[in-house]
């Protein structure tokens, strides 16, 4: 019950952050409110028992990716006047209606269709003892079953790095 309440608090915080990121006109504020969402999500991960992923979320997402966003916003010198205002009328309410429909479909429908049993009945152990998100099982899986995708991922990172440096080059010879 405590977990559920905590999840509610942090979840709402994350949602608010996301909503602000969508609504705010100033790009700096938008990115910062997204940082807030990321931190909220990290807290959710902690509540779910995935401490390691939560830590990575804070470090990589909030710390690295969104900071890169901030850098770019400043680099291109994006001021609030450069951002067009939110549309009005049908162009505003149409997307909102569509999003709400997605929301309802994904949450309510999935819920009504899945109809899952309690995990204790499946695994015959209390959920407090789940260790799926801690470092040992992740590390073990990462270096045994998922060793090959892990290596591929590192290659992808390097390719992305080189690609990005090529893209941002001043000389346009490509």
């Amino acid at each position: 019950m405590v977990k559920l309440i905590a999840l509610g608090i942090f979840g709402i915080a994350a949602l608010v952050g996301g909503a602000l990121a969508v609504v705010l006109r100033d790009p700096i504020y938008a990115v910062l409110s997204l940082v807030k969402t990321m931190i909220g999500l990290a807290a959710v991960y902690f509540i779910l028992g995935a401490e390691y992923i939560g830590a990575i979320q804070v470090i990589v997402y909030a710390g690295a990716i969104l900071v890169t966003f901030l850098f770019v916003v400043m680099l291109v010198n994006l001021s609030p006047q450069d951002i067009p205002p939110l549309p009005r009328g049908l162009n505003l309410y149409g997307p909102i209606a569509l999003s709400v429909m997605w929301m309802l479909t994904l949450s309510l429908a999935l819920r009504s269709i899945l109809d899952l049993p309690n995990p204790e009945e499946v695994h015959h152990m209390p959920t407090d003892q789940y260790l799926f998100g801690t470092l040992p099982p992740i590390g073990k899986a990462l270096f045994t079953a998922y060793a090959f995708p892990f290596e591929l991922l590192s290659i992808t990172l390097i390719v992305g790095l080189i690609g990005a440096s090529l893209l941002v080059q001043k000389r346009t010879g490509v």
Partner: protein
Amino acid sequence: MKVELLYATLTLAAGLFSLGLLGLLLRRNILLAFLSIELMLNAANLNFLAFSRYHNEPTGAIFVLFGICLAAVEAVIGLGLVVRVFRMHQDLGYTNLSALRW
């Protein structure tokens, strides 16, 4: 209690995803659209973790790990493209970006 946690998480993920979709539809700016995509990506990650927990399996968690890494790569490339576009047009609106349309 326990399965409610899963459902609550799924609902949260659905909300985040819809917000991301909304942002993608409303913001007429590449950078902010990109921001919305990050939001949607996180919603997917949250789903993975929720089910990973439900099944007490590290597979979902590892998928999330990979997802975060790929998000980093994506952000790097995407932001590189944004910078590039800005250099070409001095603007990040969509109006100049119809080169793919025949």
